[in-house]
């Protein structure tokens, strides 16, 4: 399995704070890699650094064989990286349609792709002409994910998509991400919900204090309660 994304010795400073302290990680093509860790471990910073929203102060970020750590965010996005931020960041003054029109950077909306998205998220069809600001939290998250997959992307960076959502919506999001995965997408997914992580993840990376402290298969971590407790301070059993 080739690695679509590779980070080597990546450091990120935000102001005088040294957040990422030498990250080494690889995201294999066509797999879902979970990025887990306690609050403040540096997971969101890792995604933002890959996306170019915060500049890496040192190290290499390689996407499909090309170094991208010094590229601007739009150039990274144009190389096929989709980003779903933790805040969802839908454009609340724009309608659902307008949000997706903007996300379809390379041309008009593709009807087949839209139908595929509506299959998971019928609410988006229903509220097609409603302002995104009037959607519920779960519907905003659906829109945020739909925006990232409205065009084919090489890599999806998804930051805590299930945070604060009702269980029914979490299940629907998991199904959607599974389907995206089945279509061959490569996903780097930050998640606090361990159940979702186990359902989706092929591989897992655990972060602490700005470094990767564990890497392996998700199934192995899910089966190893002492390891979970050591790495994350909790166990999957307690989380179900």
């Amino acid at each position, binding site marked *: 399995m080739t690695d679509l994304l590779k980070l080597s010795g990546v450091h990120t400073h935000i102001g005088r704070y040294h957040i990422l302290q030498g990250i080494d990680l690889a995201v294999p093509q066509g797999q879902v890699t979970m990025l887990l860790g306690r609050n403040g471990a540096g997971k969101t910073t890792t995604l933002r650094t890959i*996306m170019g*929203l915060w500049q890496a102060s040192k190290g290499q970020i390689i996407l499909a064989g090309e170094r991208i750590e010094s590229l*601007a*965010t*739009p150039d990274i*996005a*144009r190389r096929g990286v989709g*980003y779903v*931020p933790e805040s969802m*960041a839908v*454009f*609340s*003054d*724009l309608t659902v349609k*307008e949000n997706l*029109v*903007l*996300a379809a*950077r390379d041309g008009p909306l593709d009807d087949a792709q839209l139908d595929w998205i509506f299959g*998971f*998220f*019928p*609410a988006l069809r*229903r*509220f097609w002409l*409603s*302002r995104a*600001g*009037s*959607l*519920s*939290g*779960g*519907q905003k998250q*659906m829109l945020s994910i739909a*925006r990232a997959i409205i065009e084919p992307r090489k890599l999806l960076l998804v930051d805590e998509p299930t945070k604060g*959502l*009702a269980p*029914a*919506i979490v299940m*629907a999001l998991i199904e959607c991400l599974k389907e995206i995965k089945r279509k061959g997408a490569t996903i780097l997914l930050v998640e606090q919900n361990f159940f979702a992580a186990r359902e989706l993840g092929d591989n897992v990376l655990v972060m602490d204090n700005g470094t990767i402290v564990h890497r392996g298969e998700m199934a192995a971590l899910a089966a190893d309660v002492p390891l979970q407790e050591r790495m994350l301070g909790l166990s999957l059993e307690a989380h179900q």
Partner: protein
Amino acid sequence: MSDIAATDPLPKPKRDLAPILLPVALALLMIPLIGSTSSWLTLTVASLAMGMMIFIMASGLTLVFGLMDVLNFGHGAFIAVGAYVATLVLAPFAASIQADSLWMNLAVLAPAALLSMAVSGALGLVVERVLILPVYGQHLKQILMTTGGLIVAEQTLYALWGPQIIPMPLPTSLRGSFILGDVAIAKYRVLAMLIGLAIFIAIQLVLNRSKVGLLIRAGVENREMVEALGYRIRRLFLGVFMTGSALAGLGGVMWALYREQVHASMSDDLTVLIFIVVIIGGLGSIGGCFIGAILVAMVANYGGFLVPKLALVSNILLMVAILMWRPRGLYAVTSR
């Protein structure tokens, strides 16, 4: 939390009509206070005309504020430059301006306005690349750089045209008034209202019916996410900055014709009004800017008529009142 297959439609978003009704209510409230219907109508038309001119000058600034969080204290330079550039066309063709033919007047006025917009827009390109690009994200430096730019621009105008006030008489066909009963409505004010309204409609069409407009609206709300979708917002911002500068130049020509004079510091008082309009309208909101401009002009005109001693502070009081009611302006489109 509603579930995914929710069958109940969302409640339609409520239209926020209160800010739109505010100038209407203010105008109606003034009828008994002013007493004379003809005076009220004259003041109201004067307010609308002045408001449209301020809107034209402020519309670019509000998008620049909202889109890139740039504090451009030198916006007034584009107003003065626009007015001065117009004199380059209007002075040699003074005979056509004084001719009693609307078409001859417009044949000179239109190229003068277009040249002013072109030069102000080009100056905007230079200012953005030279003064603003190095200080993105640094408010204090932005204030220093753009204030410095304004001073340099004013002094350059003095050096090129001299310190004297340059007269800019209204074209003959735009002098005088339309008489409706005992009410006289100045022709130029009607023209200013029509141009302002046309520009407002054009901006709204661009913002709501084009992809560029969508990008601007999205960028005002969250420019980081626009970049994460693959759009180079700096280029978009440059376009908005140049358009805003060109509109300020047009506003400068219109204001100079309104006052029938041009001088290098003509934008000093206007800049204060423009900033008040941008703040009370809500940073980045064209609709808020439009209503704010009308409110500012109404308060200046009605206030000047009813309580002349309050004229100097009336707009500050308006801003305080609006911000106490809506701390982020009439229509908040950014989180700032």
